[in-house]
C-alpha cells in the first residue's frame, strides 16, 4: 500500500479527566505487521489509549501522528470494534452497507462487499434479520464484518470478547487472525492473558496509565522486565 498511514507514533501522550491523570506520558511507535496487544489490568488505561489512537478523544498532552505526517488519521483507513457492540436498529445487512456508505462506497457496489463480509463472519443467512436480535457473539461478529467491509489498514479492538463465551470468543479470534492474514494492522486491548498469548506478536503492558513495557510477545511472556508485568503474568499462572 503506497499511501500507508503506518507507523503510528504515540509521542508523550497524556490524558487527564476531572483532574485525574488517566494516561501518563506514553510514547511508542506501532509499525505495520505485528499484532499489537495492549495488556494490563482493568483501569490501566487500555481503552483510553485505543480511543486516543483512533482519534475519538484528544490527548491532553503529547501527539498522536500517523506516518509521520503530523496529520490526524484519515477516516476510512482505520476502524474500531468496541467491547459492547454498537449496532444500528436496522437489518444485519444494512449495518454493513451503512458503514460502506459513510466511507463513500457507491451504492451499487455496497451490496456485494457487504455480503462478502457477512459471509466471512458466518452471518450471510442472518443478513435480513434485525441486527439487535442477533446473539451476543453474532453481534460482535457483525461489528467485525462491518470493519472487514471497510478494508481498514488499522483495526482497533477494545476487549472484543470480554462478554463472550469461549465458543464465541474463538470465532472472534479466528476473524481477527484473518484480518491479520489480510494485512490489517491489529491493535487490541485485553486483560485476558490467555488471549494475549494466543494473539500477540508484541505487547504494550500498561499499568496505572503508564506504559510499563513494550516488547515482542515471546520476550514479554518469557522474561518480563518489570516487576508489574512479572506479577501480572505470575497471577495468571497462579489462577
Amino acid at each position, binding site marked *: 500500500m503506497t499511501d500507508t498511514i503506518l507507523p503510528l507514533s504515540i509521542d508523550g501522550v497524556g490524558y487527564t479527566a476531572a483532574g485525574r491523570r488517566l494516561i501518563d506520558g506514553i510514547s511508542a511507535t506501532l509499525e505495520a505487521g505485528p499484532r499489537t496487544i495492549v495488556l494490563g489490568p482493568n483501569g490501566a488505561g487500555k481503552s483510553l489509549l485505543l480511543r486516543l489512537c483512533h482519534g475519538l478523544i484528544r490527548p491532553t498532552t503529547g501527539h498522536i501522528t500517523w506516518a509521520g505526517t503530523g496529520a490526524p488519521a484519515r477516516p476510512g483507513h482505520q476502524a474500531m470494534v468496541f467491547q459492547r457492540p454498537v449496532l*444500528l436498529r436496522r437489518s444485519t445487512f444494512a449495518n454493513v452497507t451503512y*458503514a460502506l456508505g459513510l466511507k463513500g462506497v457507491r451504492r451499487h457496489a455496497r451490496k456485494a462487499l457487504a455480503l462478502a463480509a457477512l459471509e466471512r463472519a458466518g452471518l450471510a443467512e442472518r443478513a435480513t434479520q434485525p441486527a439487535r436480535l442477533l446473539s451476543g457473539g453474532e453481534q460482535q461478529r457483525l461489528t467485525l464484518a462491518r470493519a472487514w467491509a471497510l478494508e481498514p489498514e488499522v483495526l482497533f479492538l477494545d476487549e472484543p470478547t470480554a462478554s463472550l463465551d469461549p465458543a464465541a470468543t474463538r470465532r472472534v479470534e479466528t476473524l481477527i487472525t484473518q484480518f491479520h492474514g489480510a494485512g490489517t494492522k491489529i491493535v487490541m486491548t485485553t486483560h485476558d492473558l490467555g488471549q494475549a498469548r494466543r494473539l500477540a506478536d508484541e505487547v504494550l503492558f500498561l499499568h496505572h496509565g503508564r506504559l510499563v513495557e513494550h516488547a515482542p510477545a515471546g520476550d514479554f511472556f518469557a522474561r518480563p522486565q518489570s516487576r508489574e508485568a512479572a506479577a501480572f503474568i505470575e497471577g495468571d499462572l497462579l489462577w
Partner: protein
Amino acid sequence: MTDFGDAFTTAFGLIASLDPDLMEIVLLSLRVSLTAVGLAVLVGLPLGAAVALFRFPGRLVVAALLNAFMGLPPVVIGLMVYLLLSRNGPLGVLGLLFTPTAMIIAQWLLITPIVAALAQQTVSDLHAEYDEQLRSLGAGPGRAVWTLLWDGRFSLLTAVLAGFGRASAEVGAVMIVGGNINHVTRVMTTTIALETSKGNLALALGLGMILITLALTITLSAMAVRDLASRRHA
C-alpha cells in the same frame, strides 16, 4: 333518558348517512390537525435533535421555551395567536384570524414543543449509545443527526401520534383563533362545545363518537408501533 336515547339514534343516523354537515366538520378537523402535525414534525424533529446534540448560543433558552410551551394550556396559546393575528396585532395585515390557517398555527404551536421534546429525549438517548461508533465510522454531525432520527423512528412515530392526539382533541385554542364560524372554522371539538350548550345533543354525540374512535385508533397505533419496535429492535 328518552332524549338521550333519541340523541344516540340520531347521532348514529348522522354518521351512517355521512351527513354533509358532519362530514364537513370532520374533514376540516382532520385537515387542520394533520397539517399542524406535519408542520410540527418538520420543525420539531430537527429542533429537538439540535437541542439534544449541539451546543449553540441560546440552546438553553430554546430548551426552556419548549418545556414551557409544553405545559401551557391551549387557551393561552390561542390567546397569544389571537393577539398576534388580530387586526391590530403584529401579523394583523395577513388577515388570518378566524381562518383555518389561524387554527393550524395555534395547533402547530401547541404540538411542536411536544414533538421536539420527545425527539430531544429519543435522540440524546441514542446519541449516548451511538456517538463513538458513528464518529469511528466517519459520520459528520449532519449525517449523525439523520441516523439518530431514523434509528429512533419508532419512538418518534409515537411522539407524532401523541401530537396528533393532542391537536385533534384540543378545543380552547381553535375556538379562540377560529371563532367557530359555521362552514368555515367549525371543527369537531368546537362544534361539540357549541351544540351541547345549545342542547342539540345528536350532532354533539355523533362527533363525540368519531373523536373517541379517533383517539382509540391513535392509542392502538401507538401500542402497535411500540410492540413492533420492541420485537424488531429489542
